[in-house]
């Protein structure tokens, strides 16, 4: 088992002139957010249409997914995690969570599952609802064991066939050839299932084309994220990453997603060239670990903005893939590269200590002042052991670390006043430390 905390290499480096400017800063969220909204809305519209028009659809999970294979058969991917996320961010999750608890889910179960199952059982999926009933359920078991239960339950409750793709956890430095063989054998089974579902033959050249679009999007992702190494950072790599996560995880393999990243990178590059940051003043640079509290997304964000703290990197954004460390899908090695990505190049299928190494690389190479851990009750994949992470960063590396708790889906676990107190106290002490040490004001901040 690997326990090393050596930082992985970073794929792209962009240095930026630190030139404070008041221009365009207000627009940053608008442009890329709108670009993202356009492509995501188009997909949502396809989902809506698929409720009635018979388009073949399949459920898939986000983490280290193999959406390209579905796309190769024109099977429309449906992501229940995105459904859960949207319910939470629109503040609609609680009634569905309660509904799920009525049929036996425990208050301690992952609330993503509960919200989605509650929604499904309330008629949200299928003819009467807003989401198409899947014709196939593909469980890409990449790290999270809850995935298995969730999709088994979907399959049982909706009576839909389930294809399980068991991805061995990374437990040596590299996946072994046997691991890769095992995954590829399962991908071939998935391909057969897709052939049966659609009546079409698998076309490997089509898959190569799709993977070329994936690789282009991945390159864009890596470039955009490396732009956050600039001072000031052109976007908040935690809160604004959500604009890029939809396209990279759900729409990967499409031209639209690849184009989206071209547009996003061009925009962020311009901001960096002009010295424009995500905030009009960047005082603190943080790395954030853990998923956000979606039911209170805006409130949570404000608590950091108030301190002019911007996230320059985040682990949550890498659940689908750690593209910033160099991996790209390879059209020349289609199935192998899909298998390798599922096995190795995403956050979820790697150990906690490898996550420490990832965060450490972020802190060092993205020049962060502190680490913020948002510990969520629902998601033990992320949270179990985060106290040890705090210990490692504060005691062994001397990185100021704040840990706060709530949930990513269940609004009952968010205590605003307490959250605010903890965050204020943390930044006050960071500020005090800076004054005491006589550190120069960071670039981009007002005198």
């Amino acid at each position: 088992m690997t326990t090393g905390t050596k930082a992985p290499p970073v794929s792209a480096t962009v240095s930026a002139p630190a030139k404070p400017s008041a221009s365009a800063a207000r627009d940053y969220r608008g442009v890329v957010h709108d670009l993202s909204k356009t492509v995501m809305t188009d997909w949502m519209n396809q989902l809506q249409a698929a409720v009635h028009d018979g388009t073949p659809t399949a459920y898939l999970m986000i983490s280290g997914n193999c959406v390209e294979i579905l796309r190769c058969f024109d099977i429309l991917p449906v992501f229940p995690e995105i459904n859960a996320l949207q319910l939470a961010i629109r503040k609609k999750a609680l009634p569905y969570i309660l509904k799920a608890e009525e049929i036996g889910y425990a208050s301690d179960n992952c609330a993503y599952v509960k919200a989605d199952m509650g929604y499904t059982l309330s008629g949200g999926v299928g003819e009467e609802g807003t989401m198409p009933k899947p014709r196939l359920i593909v469980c890409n078991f990449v790290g999270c064991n809850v995935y298995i239960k969730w999709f088994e339950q979907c399959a049982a409750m909706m009576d839909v066939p389930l294809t399980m793709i068991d991805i061995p956890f990374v437990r040596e430095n590299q996946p072994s050839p046997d691991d890769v063989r095992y995954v590829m054998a399962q991908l071939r089974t998935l391909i057969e299932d897709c052939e049966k579902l659609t009546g079409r033959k698998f076309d490997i050249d089509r898959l190569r084309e799709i993977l070329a679009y994936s690789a282009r999007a991945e390159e864009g992702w890596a470039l955009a994220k490396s732009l956050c190494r600039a001072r000031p950072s052109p976007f908040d790599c935690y809160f604004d990453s959500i604009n890029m996560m939809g396209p990279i995880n759900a729409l990967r393999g499409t031209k639209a997603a690849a184009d989206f990243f071209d547009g996003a990178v061009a925009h962020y590059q311009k901001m960096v060239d002009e010295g424009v940051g995500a905030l009009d003043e960047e005082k603190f640079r943080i790395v954030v670990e853990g998923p956000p509290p979606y039911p209170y997304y805006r409130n949570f964000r404000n608590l950091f903005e108030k301190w002019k703290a911007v996230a320059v990197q985040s682990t949550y954004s890498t659940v689908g893939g750690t593209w910033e460390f160099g991996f790209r899908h390879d059209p020349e090695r289609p199935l192998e590269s899909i298998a390798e990505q599922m096995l190795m190049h995403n956050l979820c299928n790697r150990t906690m200590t490898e996550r420490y190494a990832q965060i450490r690389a972020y802190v060092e190479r993205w020049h962060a002042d502190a680490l913020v851990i948002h510990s969520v009750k629902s998601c033990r994949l992320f949270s179990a052991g985060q106290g040890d992470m705090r210990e490692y960063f504060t005691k062994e590396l001397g990185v100021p670390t704040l840990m706060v708790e709530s949930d990513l889906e269940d609004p009952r676990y968010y205590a605003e006043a307490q959250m605010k107190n903890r965050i204020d106290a943390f930044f006050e002490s960071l500020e005090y430390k800076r004054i005491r040490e006589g550190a120069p004001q960071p670039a981009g901040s007002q005198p």
Partner: protein
Amino acid sequence: MTVVDDAVQQCRDLLDLLPAEALARAQERHPRVAGFAVFPVYAPVEIIHAAGLMPLGLFGVGNKLEITNADSRFQSFICSIAKSTLELFLRNEMKGFTGAVFSSICDVARNLASVAGRNAPGMYLEYLHLPQSSPTEACREFTRSEFRRFRDNLGARTGRPITDDAVARSLGLYNRVRALTRQLYQERRHRPGVLSAAELFTVAQACTRLMPEDAIPLLEDLAASLPMRKPVSRDCVRVVIEGSFCEQPPIELIEAIEAAGCHVVDDDLVVGWRLFRHDVPAGPDPVAALADAYVADSCYTSVRFNAAQPRTTGLLRRAKDAGADAVVFAAAKFCEPALLDYVLFRKALDEQGVPHLKIEFEEKMWTFDRLRTEVETFTESMLFE
């Protein structure tokens, strides 16, 4: 004291010890044997034993140790076994152990393996990916390769390659342990009350703290003496306990369930150590045989997906085979695999008209009155309906 009482008492004494103390006890008979801890649910203990090590079940520490360090590492919403296991590592209470093995049962166990490893740098920690797929050829091949990797790593660590002969010998011993345990379960099923659930649980768990060479005579004595023992006969509901496959409930909880009017006729307590339904034939390649048995001959658990053997079907069959009237679903608090499985279990039981009751436990639980009343209300409603 009868033979049975005496054997159960020995087992109870063993369970009162911390893992390192249990190891020291074994070393009195097996000088110099080092320990190798096995976190639930399953690991191929035969390979560990064949390496000249003593496989020892790592089921947390119950209330034998105050948790002072681990709860700052694992939050309040994490199961007790994860915290108490980490506490052992943080307090350097794993003296005499070469290492430990964890497997892909849940997100918590996976992170625990990593955190424990970071905090116990001298220990050799292994993580097994036990497959979550149906018994296809690819699954079988993968599992064989995973067991071989474990064997090779362990051999490299101890500096002594593990031979097929040694694995076959260990397999023979563990086959015997499992067969005798199955026999005790069978006996209890047919003559409920002959061995209480608390007694059988004590014995089964104690066997995870004994070398198989020592477990065998103990189990043989027990099996031989049971026919002479008079079953306690009471008006009871025959129940299956489900949900306790990883963290083990306090023994008092099992006693409370029985005192509340239940005859436990089957359960999934310590299930990983008695996973196989039949003896595993060693054959020419005993490591492959073990892997194949894991893939195709293990009983269902909440920590494994196997489309060929849905867990709901498994539970219904378990209840039917044991002639159970009801199911008591006893899950460790915060145990995601157990609590998520309850949803489909409950649905299946309702559809088949099997009464069921859900309870939750934690290691540090110390009062069982409320729980006993709950179970009593449940059994009375069944007995006097």
